């Protein structure tokens, strides 16, 4: 877990074998693409793709009162989570800023599986441990697991080919079982806006499973497509669209915060809700042609006053238009507001639009 050394997922050799271009991401050596980001993006929108997500962290929490304790640490209401279901939630600092966004899965009474962002494994684990109470056990099993996301309209068919006897759980549902004496976990969740699932196996079996999904029709996809897919449906990326300086309410994700529970940071969120927000994360889209908008490009009023910088941006492969997200003051955040994006000293007009950019027909 040292931060100075680049880490390899259990699938790293397989990626190279499959022709991937590897790049460092969040301290991990990861595939950015195999053939082309455009092709991989299209495969997920139209058929099915598979992503290595083994770099993400896996924690297990158990013990009487696990859900009650999570409600003091995480923003969503863990007590509303039924057995066999997943929930999107946030870990916040005392100022209500986002430390991490994560998904928690409830296997059984007082049995919780947490999946966190790769760059935040150590930070999250330390934060949870710092607040952990007697009677609860928290383990970081990130190195023991391989994880892959199979996403796209044909993901269900792909699953059926590998597991003819099993039914995929419903949206946000989970299932666990054993294959050849090894535990498998499947969750009907994802980060692409498509139907699909995330599959967890032992690190040792990861490559075998990945290859089986590829043989069943899933196209290997890299982080490049993962980023354009999630941006088209306005899913936030922690460290870009979410930050320790901004709350989930500002990010437009208040739906995932149970303000009637007492988690760290809740006071700030309640106050924001009462007093109103000063700025909000919005979706903006070019009104004409232009170079791909990218994170950190400046955002200006039509009068030339700087408002913010882009938190994310890309040339949308589905829409062939420049799409981006940025935090804007609320009076500039209304749908239809025109702004300018600065690209290498030239200004390109963009308009605040409704989220998401891309919607399934």
């Amino acid at each position, binding site marked *: 877990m040292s931060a100075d050394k680049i880490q390899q997922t259990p699938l790293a050799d397989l990626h190279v074998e499959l022709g991937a271009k590897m790049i460092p991401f969040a301290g991990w050596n990861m595939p*950015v*693409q195999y*053939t082309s980001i*455009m092709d991989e993006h299209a495969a997920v929108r139209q058929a099915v793709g598979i992503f290595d997500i083994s770099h993400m962290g896996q924690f297990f929490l158990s013990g009487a009162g696990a859900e009650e304790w999570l409600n003091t640490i995480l923003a969503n209401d863990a007590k509303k989570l039924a057995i066999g279901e997943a929930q999107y939630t946030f870990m916040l600092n005392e100022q209500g800023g986002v430390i991490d966004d994560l998904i928690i899965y409830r296997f059984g009474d007082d049995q919780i599986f947490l999946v966190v962002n790769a760059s935040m494994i150590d930070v999250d684990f330390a934060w949870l441990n710092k607040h952990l109470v007697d009677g609860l056990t928290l383990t970081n099993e990130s190195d023991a697991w391989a994880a892959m996301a199979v996403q796209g309209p044909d993901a269900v068919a792909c699953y059926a080919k590998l597991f003819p006897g099993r039914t995929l759980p419903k949206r946000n549902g989970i299932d666990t079982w054993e294959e050849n004496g090894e535990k498998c976990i499947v969750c009907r969740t994802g980060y692409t806006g498509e139907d699909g699932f995330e599959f967890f196996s032992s690190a040792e079996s990861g490559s075998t499973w990945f290859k089986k999904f590829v043989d069943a029709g899933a196209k290997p996809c890299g982080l*490049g497509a993962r980023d354009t897919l999630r941006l088209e449906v306005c899913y936030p990326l922690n460290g870009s669209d979410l930050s320790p300086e901004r709350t989930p309410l500002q990010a437009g994700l208040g739906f995932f915060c149970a303000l009637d529970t007492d988690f760290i940071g809740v006071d700030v969120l309640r106050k924001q809700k009462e007093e109103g927000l000063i700025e909000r994360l919005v979706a903006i889209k070019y009104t004409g*042609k232009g*170079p*791909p908008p990218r994170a950190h490009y400046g955002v200006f009023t039509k009068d030339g006053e700087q408002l913010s910088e882009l938190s994310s941006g890309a*040339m949308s492969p589905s829409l062939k238009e420049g799409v981006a997200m940025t935090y804007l003051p609320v009076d500039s955040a209304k749908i239809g507001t025109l702004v300018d994006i600065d690209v290498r000293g030239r200004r390109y007009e963009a308009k605040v639009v409704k989220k998401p950019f891309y919607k399934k027909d």
Partner: protein
Amino acid sequence: MSVPENFRYTSDHEWVLLEGEVATVGITHHAQDELTDIVFVELPEVGRECETEEAIAVVESVKAASDIFAPVAGEIVEANGELESDPALVNTDPHAKGWIFKIKVSDPAEVAALMDAAAYSEFIGA
């Protein structure tokens, strides 16, 4: 990988084809293969005078923006407007329809000093 014989090449992976005093410039097959998915080309202004190695255009893939340099000193006399509507020509036909600009060369000796096809092939390990 295709490295046409009659072209000259730079270490920035641009090709140069000199005809008379005007050189046509683009990025190599190897470069487009590395970049993949070109989605935007920012062309140089016609009439612009530029020094050798001056950044005068930008080629953008989904993932990154890359500068394009003047391979030699001279004046930009034409830019490939086709790329504004079809930037993917740089991927599909890098050595012909995907040309980026034409430059009136100040000193033809500068072009002659660039890598030939054999040297460039060796440079990219092809």
